[in-house]
């Protein structure tokens, strides 16, 4: 592949996400939300932290219930 062609491709925004596009999206979000950067960072950050913690807590609560069910069933069987 000739190098000029490669460079031509890179000029066509070969990165994972087009930086100009992201700037426009950010302007759009600023316009829609009107909040400061920190508010959005905190809200998204909280959601990101809440998901795994929530999943683990939910799993533990289910585990506890299953153990209680098992205990109940074995007591009934006695």
């Amino acid at each position, binding site marked *: *592949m000739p190098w000029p*062609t*490669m*460079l*031509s*491709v*890179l*000029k*066509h*925004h*070969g*990165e*994972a*996400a*087009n*930086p*100009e*596009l*992201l*700037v*426009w*999206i*950010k*302007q*759009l*979000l600023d316009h829609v939300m009107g909040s*400061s*950067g*920190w508010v*959005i*960072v905190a809200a*998204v*950050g909280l*959601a*990101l*932290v809440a*998901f*795994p913690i929530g*999943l*683990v807590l939910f*799993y533990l609560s*289910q585990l506890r*219930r*299953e153990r209680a*069910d*098992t*205990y109940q*069933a*074995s007591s009934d*069987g*006695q």
Partner: protein
Amino acid sequence: MAGPVRNKPRIFYGWYMVATFMFIALATTGARNAFGVFVIPMEEEFDWNRTTVTAAGFIGAVVAGVIQPFLGRIFDATGGRKIILVGLISIGVTLILLSLTFHIIFLILMFGVFASVAAGGVSINNTSAMLARWFRRRRATVMGLNAAGASLGGMVIVPFAMFLMQATNWRLTWVALGVLILVLALPLAFIFIRESPAQMGLQPDGDDEPSDGASPGESQRGPGPLEASKWTQPFRSWPFWQVSLAYMVCGSTTFMLSVHFVPYAVDRGVSPGLAATIFGVMLGLNVFGSLGAGLLADRFGRKNLLALVYVLRGSGYMILILPGIFGLTLLSGNLGLWLFALVMGFSWWATLPLTSSLTADVYGTQTLGTISGISFAFHQIGAAISVLFAAVLYDLTGSYTVPFLIVGILLFPAAFSAFSVKERKYSSRYVSAPAVPAASGD
């Protein structure tokens, strides 16, 4: 005295795996997609030009495609859990190290090579291959959920990185993305990932074990006629080539679009802001497309739906291009772009759960990581060729009409290729269940 009675779990453990993989896909895909956010501030700080910085992203895409079959092989050989954990640690550390960027070679090595290899370990190919062991009846649905997690990653993590960077700086933002993976995704993976339901004494889909003499359910069905115990076996059968070549066209049509859509829309006279909005809507619809495709595929089968998705996408390209050629003013304006965004948005990620579940159904799960990795390499080859091809043709003709038209037309043979897969003959979904012999001697 009666021993303890072990009840069937209220919630099948596989669903915790699905939630874990969705979060991993969200965090890792989002962090990689956020690279574009860093381009402008890094350019400004180091006085790099755009071509130099984007080389890291371009190399990353190539490395991700090339490495996937090898990582898939390691995945199959080791069972999967280890490579996912190592991949998460590596990608987290690499993202943190990116905060120390001081030279373009460092950026290319860290993002283009190390982060891409690490991300390959936790790729959707590998996580879907593991989910295929946990689910048979709902295989496409869970693969659709997994893909939706990746799609959501772009929508959640990229704006998060944007605003964090606005509030701090690009170095801290890289650290935050790395910490997100190491502190949240890694522990979740460590806690929940189990390589197969058999490890926990469970059956796929959480079904009951077949009782003696009873007819087994769908989850206990036998292997399909092309079940592969070696990764080279699929090369000698038609479905692999039918699916992979169609997937190659899929890669060419999505990558060409992600790289060239905004410049194309601007060339059509649309404002950059509107072009970005249309593109954003398209990305948002991905989530519904992958979820819907998964749900429908578990109900109606994979290959017909896959063919339908390719036809829809091809029709979308025709809506985009043909009105301009034939002078249909109504569709050659913004309406055509919006219609295209609608069709393309729904079909963008829909191919992933359909292709992955069809591959798993036909070739089984023993070597699925490798086989899916090779199919993905086809996808990336199509992507690389199409992006280069569109750039060259744009330079030659001064417009995107010809390359868009060509890839749009290619979608119809791709649809035929998917449609011609003999799913009922080869898929384990349609294999009769082997009868379980009644216990004797009792």
